[in-house]
């Protein structure tokens, strides 16, 4: 499974998404549409850090890195 799909599966299963994972597109606005809130951000960070054994720096906790599945995947790819 690609990085994007793994993130998609995680968000669909654990956060504020109530439709099938396949309907959550790469550029869906996660923050704007409230799929991800402050608790959600911390869940995603823990998921990323465990799944890919990387560390998310505090400086990287900015909206640009979490706006969409593509941007989260970009953050991960730059680390693995």
């Amino acid at each position: 499974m690609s990085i994007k799909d793994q993130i998609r599966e995680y968000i669909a299963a654990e956060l504020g998404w109530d439709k099938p994972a396949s309907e959550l597109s790469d550029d869906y606005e996660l923050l704007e549409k409230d799929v991800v809130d402050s608790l959600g951000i911390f869940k995603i960070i823990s998921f990323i850090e465990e799944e890919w054994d990387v560390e998310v720096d505090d400086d990287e906790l900015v909206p640009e890195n979490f706006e969409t599945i593509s941007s989260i995947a970009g953050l991960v790819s730059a680390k693995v």
Partner: protein
Amino acid sequence: MTYQLHQLLEASADRHADRPALVDRDRVMTYAELNSAANRVANLLVELGVRPGDRVGLYLQKSQEAIVGLYGILKTGAAYVPIDPNAPAMSRATYIIDNCGISVVVTGEEMADKWVEIVSAETALTHLVVMNAAAMDVDAPGVKVIGQDAIEAQPATFGDAGGIGQDLAYILYTSGSTGAPKGVKLSHLNGFSYVRWLVDYFEASEHDRFSNHPPLHFDMSIPDIFGAAMVGAALVLVPPKTSVFPIQIKRFIENNEITIWYSVPSTLSMLLQRGKLEAGCMPTLRVLTFAGEVFPSKYLADLMRVVPHPRYINQYGPTETNVCTYYEVPEPPDPATDIPIGRAIADVETFVVTEDGARVPPGEVGELLVRGSTVMRGYWGDPDKTARRLVPNPLGVELPDLVYRTGDLVREDGRGDYIFLGRRDNQIKSRGYRIELGEIETALYAHDRIKECAVLAVPDDIFTNKILAYVVLEGDLEEQELKAHCKEKLPPYMIPDFFRVAEGLPKTSTGKIDRRLLADEIEKDEEQA
């Protein structure tokens, strides 16, 4: 003389006409501009039939438009009723509109996709006033959309609608234990008294810059809006996305030179842990104040060491009392102790009683009761519930006013400050929000494949509590469907964080679900993890 909340704005428009009143990202309004804009809204609302004593909905994100609309509503003598823009429109927004008989809703373009749902329900709704877009058609007979142009066409002056301080200023809907939210009625005087204490105690002036992020349906939004107006200070709104990211909060406070910041402890704990705070950061902060949940002492102590210069003030009070007690934290607390909720604010009295209404000696546990000018006028349309919470003084003292039973258990610490110990019922706090677990259970039971359920709070270091739902199913139900169902019925902060499907739930000898046993199980799981 000022005794109504919108008069604070009018007085500041006279005295501080050109000072910044409201900052929403790069949009700044002076006091004169804010007052004129609110006058235009008030004129339009009166044209639409709004009269003193009416309730007008406020259904939009916290923004410049929302604050203009809020003051416009107050000027007409009506009360504003904030509707959570993120809550499900069909079940919650329409419930509120129907419950307090709203005919006009002030809204914003960003809510357009939710209008379809609220206009299709059978309520008294006749007009949607869109603050920031042209009029558009909604497909509903009997509901008309009024656009921004109609507001701008109104005169920028507005007379005095009359009324007194005891009249209703706002109704805040909070979680209700029986499944439906309840509307807390608060008067101008209620808000005014609280803000007057806050301004005095914080030594606020026109040089201050207030900011906080709680939404308008949360009573924590009150001091910033009206406190700033009382002294002619600036209210700086936090862009919604900023409050999700700790580093952004720090930069926001620094870039906007915020002097008084008010938020829930969860936000401050996150700021401490992931905000990259360094010595000398956020230099303009004068007061850091928090409420809504217990601040874990270890985090507060660390925060006070890293950011030593502001005053740290804990505020406490259910929505029904605005705020009723406060505690200023003098130095980094011992991590093994609890931060007190403190003592009564000005013009408020508090006392602690046993279940039979006898006064509890200092050091012993009892329920906190409150009387004073910040205490609500009751629950909208629910005299029974009002009579259960606003009661004659149990100590037998004959007084003209009633006292509010908080349902919170406290103990006095021997120095005159109260320590919060817990609830007498199933109400919990999560991320600062007040939640009745019973309301979540009612929402779950509304699904025909849920045979039985129990919703519990799982204590969490940062968020106070996370929410866990045990469900017993009749047939099959995917977790996805469960979540979708909750999303339709509940605002986001009430949706369980975890679901566990069980074959059955443990019962007590009287046949009730044994919550204690379930809670013990959770604790065991946590220890193993």
